[in-house]
């Protein structure tokens, strides 16, 4: 049925408004912090940029999983979903270690508006990645038990759309937080 993909399409559109508002809040306070931590003096764009590549790559591997589904290559589909999960977990590890580092320097959500908007925006994005990872894990589990023989599956395609969306959001978030602060 086309219904499921239409639903996930509109859902993603609705979610993007949610992120637009979080980004607007970040943008609204950009440059208002005169002393204390800011993006420019406490973030490492290179390190996070490298971890971002894992997320970008995971979008690619998810696309390959979809291709394997179409060509009914069940084994490779499972491999690509597994690769996607591993890349996603690596990204989340990068996010978590960045957070730990910041919190270690007493830069928290309650420190100032930079902390507030930074942790909220990256936190909600990270939460969405985790939800995606959960869904991918379920997908992989079902595939292990023999589901998704192809060439079509709304389950795989819808989660793939969601995963690409989460990836796309990160490109915007990274640009707004890291690139805007340093370039």
């Amino acid at each position, binding site marked *: *049925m*086309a*219904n499921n993909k*239409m*639903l996930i399409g*509109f*859902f993603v*559109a*609705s*979610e993007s*408004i*949610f992120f637009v*508002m*979080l980004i607007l*809040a970040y943008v*609204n*306070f950009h440059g*208002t*912090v005169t002393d204390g931590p800011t993006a420019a003096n406490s973030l490492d764009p290179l390190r996070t940029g490298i971890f971002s590549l894992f997320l970008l790559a995971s979008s690619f591997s998810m696309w390959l999983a979809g291709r394997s589904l179409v060509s009914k290559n069940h084994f490779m589909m499972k491999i690509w979903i597994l690769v996607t999960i591993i890349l996603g977990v690596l990204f989340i590890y990068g996010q978590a270690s960045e957070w730990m580092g910041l919190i270690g320097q007493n830069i928290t*959500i*309650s420190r*100032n*508006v930079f*902390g*507030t*908007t930074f*942790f*909220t925006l990256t936190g*909600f994005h990270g939460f969405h990645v985790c939800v995606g990872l959960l869904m991918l894990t379920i997908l992989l589990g079902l595939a292990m038990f023999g589901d998704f023989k192809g060439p079509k*599956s*709304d*389950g795989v395609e819808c989660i793939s759309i969601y995963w690409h969306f989460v990836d796309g959001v990160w490109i915007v978030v990274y640009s707004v937080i890291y690139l805007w602060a340093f370039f």
Partner: protein
Amino acid sequence: MSTRIPLVPENIKPLPSLKGNEGMLSWVSSVDHKQIGLMYLMSTLVFFIIGGLEALVIRIQLAQPEFDFISPEVYNQMFTMHGTTMIFFVVMPFLIGVGVYLVPLMIGARDMAFPRLNALSFWLVIFGGILLYYSFLTQSGPSEVGWFAYAPLSEKPFSLNKGPTYWALGLLAVGISSVSSGLNNIVTILTMRVKGMTMRRLPLFVWMILVTSFILIFVIPIIASAFAMMLLDRLLDATFFTPAHGGSAILWQHFFWGFGHPEVYILILPAFGIISEVIPVFSRKPIFGYSFVAGSTVAIGLLSVGVWAHHMFAVGLGNVANAYFSLASMLIAIPTGVKVLNWVATMWGGKIYFATPMLFATAFIIEFVMGGLTGVAIASAPINWVTTDTYFIVAHFHYVLFGGSLFAIFAGVYYWFPKFTGRMMSETLGKWHFWLTVVGFNMTFFIQHFLGVMGMPRRTYTYHDLPYWGSMNLLSTIGAFVLAISVIIFAWNIIWSLKHGKKAPDNPWNAWTLEWYTTSPPAVHNFDLVPPVRGRRPLWDLAHPDQLDEPNSKVV
């Protein structure tokens, strides 16, 4: 995937019945759009009575100057809970619920596109309501900060009680529910129409639900993110909306009204849909200017997201912003006026039959135009500066929300009750309900225009004994009690008619849309056979094959 067994077994008993062997379980576990629709309607009636009682407490406190019926804190809690309940737990879920019941029937479908998502939407409303009302059990009671919860009043250290936290959590649950029912409606309407039911033949009620659903999915996320930020501020000491720590209180206002203004169209567009169904049927004429009614709705939907700051003229946004938001807001009067003229033109020259639904629909036009006119007035920034936060505003939005949405809701209940239950509602009680509502409503709220112009501030628990203020407020309070009597009659009419109402035929009003083709109440599977759709009035075409609405249309 499609061959999987559903998680919840299909209900095989006819509807609606609490007496079946499955009893309550058949309702609680239901994924049937008709049962879910009825559960929406029943729960909104409960919330309506609760919200109404809160309004009565407010009016008793204001009945005479410097009265001390309740404390200022309780007064603040009452108007906060009254507004929140009526908007999020009465009007919105009613309109969504009646949509959930009727949309599949009107487009000839078996159910919504996602029945389980539909059930989730309903139960989230109940969950949200429990969260909101749970705050009565906390130490210092529910939120006292009004339905728009302006920062920094809603923040620490001004609101240290748990009320606003429960308030935001409850509304977050309702927000998720609204987005999911919006998504469900859109997919249902776009993909599940019976053959021949093109977009240009869609009943106007379905058009309105479609536009409303689009507003829901794009606007609710705005407030959901704002609620998330408010909760982070309150629970984790974030600083979004606290100016003392570098945050911005105005940002909350922008976010809130960015949602809040489109929200008023969420509350009125499906009501327009009900009116657009009722008026043609009781005027015995097809709707005048179908495409203008549908098109102007789309225009309202688009304009609605660009006018939010007319709620914020008092902030002082500067002349350019004020001029823009004034003009843009006034623009909305055009597509709205188009609709009013279409309804009047539909009635013009028709054989009007004033059954209770039509009485409410006719009164709707008059009361809503009244609210619309004051709306255009206060869209002008200078007038707004004078009237802001006075009872003029209270009168204005009660004319559009009560005189508008609620009158349409009453019209809808009387109109579709036979279809929902298989019994007619009592016309005698209906007419009592109608006239008492009209008298009580205008008595309560018309006088508040004058109180507002005289400068009586809203959200203030009492007032000084200024000339005429006491007697005008007393009149308003008496009106509120007349309204209370009308609601008792309405509730009694429902209960009485469920047991003793005349048995309803399938199509008691000689209406033309598909829901009247099936039995009253509809069978579990909705239709044995959906009649061919060859125009906007399928049942007319069926009865008059020689006088088709679209003479050249083919049966598909």
